[in-house]
């Protein structure tokens, strides 16, 4: 039977997250020490060899991203590392667990990443609601300075790096990397036009590496133990482990670190099985910007590549389980309402489209003479939104909508 394999979460519950000495005893900063002995390019090569994919949702190869940043704008006066700790995807709390329980792990990953791209300044952008994460990260940074792990001439290597915490203030969209940079600069969370990508023009117009907390938390292991060791777990196309956060109708909702490639069924089992013994009905994978699946997907491997093939998404690793009797239309309505609330309003299709979709979803829920036509129209709208929107938010509603319709069209369109 499937067991948890804790690599990233190995210290969870075992150390005092506010004690750097505890963390160091448990191996923290070993990766950094090793990294500082080699060339920045060697660090990037190791990550590329490990084929670590970004754990924020998009799954872009992390080493490649670092390579782009390290090679961008050689005459620029400054380069930045920005940690995306704006975890806001519904059903997702993996980064919070890392920040609250082992903050030195991702801080170490951040410093290694900064070294790899030669960034002397880093920002950690943390969700404003994550008070505990903010506090513990600040303690970790302070202690790291004291130990010479941050600041000038880190561990005698000649590498300088300063890191400060920036607070979000209640905006899901600021978890999108270009929007986060706007917010980081003290502006409204309106997305930027892409290109340029952050690697070219990121924070303050300078080359910037933006990485998710969990991604960075994987780096110390790769540097300390090597790419081969890292690849021993997971699948060929999605190596390593992934933290899934399972919630909804399971007995032991929570965070589970497992090798990439476990099945949905195995995850439910890990989480103690279906609550109250109710039959499984659906899962929402990846949060609101994710996809619904039904029981036909229970045996599918949960990896970036496989799910993509099946038209589903792994996203942030959120797995929300629904049981028989839970109406899909409610979940769908909740997701659409969420998008309306979080749309920044900059581009027309997202601003108005999300508002109109909520109106339609209310009709879908409360009664409409031709729900089939209504649902089709909603899919059409969200498809055009996806094609025309400026940023990922407006491109998202089609995901839960289309997947819900493909698995649960009868339920959604039946007249009550």
């Amino acid at each position, binding site marked *: 039977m499937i067991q948890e394999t804790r690599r990233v979460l190995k210290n969870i519950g075992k150390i005092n997250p506010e004690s750097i000495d505890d963390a160091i005893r448990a191996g923290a900063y070993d990766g950094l020490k090793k990294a500082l002995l080699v060339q920045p390019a060697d660090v990037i090569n190791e990550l590329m060899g490990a084929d670590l994919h970004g754990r924020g949702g998009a799954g872009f190869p992390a080493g490649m991203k670092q390579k782009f940043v390290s090679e961008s704008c050689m005459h620029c006066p400054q380069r930045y590392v920005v940690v995306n700790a704006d975890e806001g995807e519904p059903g997702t709390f993996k980064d919070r667990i890392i920040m609250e329980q082992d903050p030195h792990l991702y801080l170490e990953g951040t410093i290694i990443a900064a070294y790899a791209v030669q960034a002397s300044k880093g920002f950690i952008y943390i969700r404003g609601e994550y008070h505990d994460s903010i506090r513990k990260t600040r303690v970790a940074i302070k202690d790291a300075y004291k130990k010479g792990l941050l600041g000038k001439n880190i561990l005698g290597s000649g590498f300088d790096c300063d890191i400060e915490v920036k607070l979000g203030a209640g905006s899901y969209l600021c978890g999108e990397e270009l929007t986060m940079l706007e917010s980081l600069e*003290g502006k409204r969370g309106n997305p930027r036009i892409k290109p340029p990508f952050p690697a070219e023009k990121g924070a303050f117009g300078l080359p910037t590496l933006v990485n998710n907390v969990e991604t960075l938390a994987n780096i110390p292991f790769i540097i300390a133990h090597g790419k081969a060791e890292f690849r021993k777990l997971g699948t060929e196309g999605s190596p390593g482990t992934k933290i899934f*956060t399972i919630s909804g109708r399971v007995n032991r909702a929570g965070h589970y670190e497992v090798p990439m490639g476990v099945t949905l069924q195995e995850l439910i089992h890990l989480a103690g099985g279906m609550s109250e013994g109710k039959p499984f009905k659906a899962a929402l994978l990846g949060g609101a910007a994710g996809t619904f699946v039904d029981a036909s997907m229970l045996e599918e491997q949960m990896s970036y590549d496989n799910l993509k093939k099946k038209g589903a998404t792994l996203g942030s690793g959120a797995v929300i389980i629904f049981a028989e009797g*839970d109406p899909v239309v409610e979940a769908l309505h909740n997701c659409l309402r969420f998008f309306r609330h979080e749309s920044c309003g900059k581009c027309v299709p997202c601003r108005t489209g999300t508002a109109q979709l909520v109106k339609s979803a209310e009709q879908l829920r409360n009664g409409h003479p031709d729900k089939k036509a209504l649902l089709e129209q909603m899919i059409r709208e969200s498809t055009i939104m996806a094609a025309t929107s400026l940023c990922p938010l407006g491109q998202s509603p089609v995901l839960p909508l289309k997947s819900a319709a493909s698995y649960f069209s009868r339920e959604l369109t039946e007249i009550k």
Partner: protein
Amino acid sequence: MTNPLQLMCTQQIIEQFAPEQHNLLNILHALQDNHPQNYLTEQALDDTARYLGLPKSSVYGVATYYTMFSLVPRGRYIVRVCTSVVCELHKAGRVIGSLENMLGITTGETTPDGMFTLELSECLGQCQDAPSVMVNEKVYNNLDDNRLAEIIHQIRGSQKTANR
């Protein structure tokens, strides 16, 4: 006055930060947290704009974009009910109803004694123990009516002690 920070004037708070635009959100957080009514006064926005050399509208635009900031006075305790898809599955709607009853206000309002403001929140990332609410910086999970009553009672009690 329980919080020593509350004795600080706006200017003192602002000047802890470098006068650079990227500090705007951190400054607004600090100003709001310092205010006993958990909001950003027009004076605070004005001082911030001047300190950062920003137009008023930029500061106002930021303060109204982010949901954590308020431009109207609120209670000493902000009760934020998570309405995510997970919490909703675990009857967040009932939590809202119960809190409205217990506090005698509807969502968005502040109790007449200035103690509580009831608000809704997007996912608080506490889905392992849904449903959840956050009261100021503290998170409460696995809520039912009894637990909610207990929490409210406890906060009221601690306030009475503090006021004595």
